């Protein structure tokens, strides 16, 4: 039972249009990420100085986010989605790759293979200006708020840092933001420890909004919340996007949540983008064996729809030495069906367009059909061995 995306009927709570958003239709892309790589070096050897390996958290990811769009990024733990977010926000230094935000290059570092050239970094002033336009909402409501600052100080810190020194003006802005995220304006003098998880997450959102950013990276914003609170925050994020024309990079591991809020969804596995498509297409007919397995593994909150699943064998490989060729080949059900074609282990698949906005990084994406999926489900079978 799929509903098409109904037009946004909700009227924004406050009429004022946030000053930061350009009225005219901006050029299509807000954020461009080219071949982004982030390796965490593993130190070893005698003095702990020599480099003995690297965790390839993000290993060459490219995508772009259109203005006003909500791009979902989904994947299991260890796939590098959170690292990707932090590198884009320059909270973590990138190993190589290029990120451009609203026309401003944040950094452009040559990859190892490329001809040597000097890496480019946005200057501190430029970064400060960009940060005003690019904000973040974190996962843990308890850890992302400084316990020793009042709500007023927390939400007002951004504007203060960006020059809004007039206390009155700041307070007004803070009150406006609190109202916008559904919090009582009197909370301005209260401290984080006096709020529930859901309310703290709203404070985090208000803090991000205070700078009137165009782009917000939401890193698992609702994962730590209870179901009923989760829906309140998701609705809030939806309303804000519609009202302020915000652009989201929405990172989460819960597929249902990502499907609900995103326009487009990217699926990541072991540091790479394996599939990117519009939200309806990706759920209706996934074009990568991992996405298929992922979707089939999610239990439906409906006893009637208990379905047989594709059960992937083994564990997620270690990002320190990923499998050769296609990283999913060690657990791929499609490869088994196709008699383990050699390409899977030798040639790393490239994210290629398959038409109607769908991209997949699988050599045999075209082989995925309902029948193939059904036989994969059948062959999964119980992982329990026979009766002792």
């Amino acid at each position, binding site marked *: 039972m799929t509903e098409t995306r109904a037009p946004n009927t909700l009227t924004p709570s406050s009429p004022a249009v946030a000053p930061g958003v350009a009225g005219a239709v901006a050029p299509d892309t807000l954020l461009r990420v080219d071949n982004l790589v982030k390796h965490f070096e593993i130190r070893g050897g005698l003095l702990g100085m020599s480099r003995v390996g690297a965790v390839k958290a993000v290993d060459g990811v490219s995508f772009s986010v259109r203005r006003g769009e909500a791009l979902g990024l989904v994947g299991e733990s260890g796939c590098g989605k959170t690292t990707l977010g932090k590198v884009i926000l320059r909270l973590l230094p990138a190993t190589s790759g290029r990120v451009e935000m609203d026309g401003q290059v944040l950094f452009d570092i040559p990859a190892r293979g490329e001809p040597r050239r000097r890496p480019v970094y946005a200057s501190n002033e430029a970064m400060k200006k960009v940060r005003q336009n690019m904000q973040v909402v974190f996962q843990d409501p308890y850890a992302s708020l400084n316990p020793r600052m009042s709500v007023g100080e927390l939400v007002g810190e951004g504007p203060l840092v960006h020059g809004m020194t007039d206390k009155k003006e700041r307070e007004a802005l803070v009150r406006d933001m609190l109202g916008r995220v559904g919090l009582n304006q009197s909370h301005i003098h209260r*401290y984080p420890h006096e709020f529930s998880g859901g309310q703290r997450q709203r404070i985090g959102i208000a803090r991000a909004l205070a700078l009137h950013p165009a782009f917000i990276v939401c890193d698992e914003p609702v994962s730590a919340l209870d179901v009923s609170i989760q829906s309140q925050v998701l609705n809030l994020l939806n309303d804000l996007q519609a009202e302020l024309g915000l652009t989201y990079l929405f990172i989460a591991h819960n597929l249902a949540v990502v499907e609900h809020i995103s326009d487009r969804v990217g699926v990541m596995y072991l540091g790479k983008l394996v599939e990117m498509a519009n939200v309806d297409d990706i759920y209706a007919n996934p074009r990568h064996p991992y996405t298929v397995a992922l979707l089939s593994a999610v239990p439906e909150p409906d006893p009637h729809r208990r379905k047989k699943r594709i059960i992937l064998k083994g564990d997620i490989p270690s990002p320190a030495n990923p499998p050769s060729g296609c990283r999913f080949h060690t657990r791929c059900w499609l490869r088994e069906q196709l008699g383990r074609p050699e390409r899977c282990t030798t040639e790393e698949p490239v994210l290629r367009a398959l038409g109607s906005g769908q991209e997949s990084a699988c050599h045999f994406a075209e082989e995925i059909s309902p029948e193939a999926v059904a036989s994969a489900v059948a062959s999964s079978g119980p992982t329990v061995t026979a009766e002792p």
Partner: protein
Amino acid sequence: MVGRSLREIIWARLRRDRVAMICLVILVVYYLIGILGPVVAGILNDSPYTLHPDLISEMGGKPIAAYGGISAAHPLGVEWGTGRDILAQLLFGLRISLVISTVATLMTVVLGVVIGIVAGYSRGVTDNFLGRLMDLILAFPFLLIVMSLSGVLTQRLTQLGVPEGNASRILYLILVMSFFGWPYLARIVRGQVLSLREREFVEASVAMGAGRRRILFSEILPNLWAPILVYATLTLPNYIGLEAALSFLGVGVLPPDVTFGSMLANSVTYVNVVPTYLFIPGTALVILVVSFNLLGDSLRDALDPKGVH
């Protein structure tokens, strides 16, 4: 409705803690006596320096009155041989002990926090260097160094214009204690800074465009004063005990000035004959040190973040 800041909550919790309150009162009284020492002594019309040979018997310098010359004029007795008033000595001694330990603690805290933050925040080479420096200082045999250098350094200080006599020796004690003391705090602060900078609210500030200085002073430092405060209230009594020990070993202040330590040191000779010489400064020292320790413990529990939620 104004929110109750962390500080108010901690103060409210402390107030509920009877032990902490008693200790706080005792310490305030000690510090008042310390500051007003001379005035109090003045009231009793006696200074720790005036000799009262008339109170001393011919029996080897033993005070005439019993229990070490306890009398109306000298409620705590008089010193063997010279007849100097013990109560006045206690008041003046307390003052010197408090001055030494408090100033040494302040210097330790300042040094410890600054170096701790620099080490914790800068990481890389500076952190390594400072870390090794701390280890080096911690490895020093403190007592040996203090005793052997005392003569030389106090002279150096007097040459630098510090007034003769005990001023240079007191300054020496303060310098030595804080020099060997700050690494302990620096390590704690460094550890805290390392963990705080990983916390998401610091990353949020960075994402907001806050500069390095703002991160340090408005995000990290406010979260540090709790461990610092606890450390200070536990270091100060250590320094008082240390000063007493050093006086005992002859590195402390010279007569005619006295501190708790030197009083204890001199009392050992007469312990069989006049035990009060040992018990009076001993009890005063114990009450002072125990009060600080208990207050420190109560403070630590009150500041425990788990309790704050």
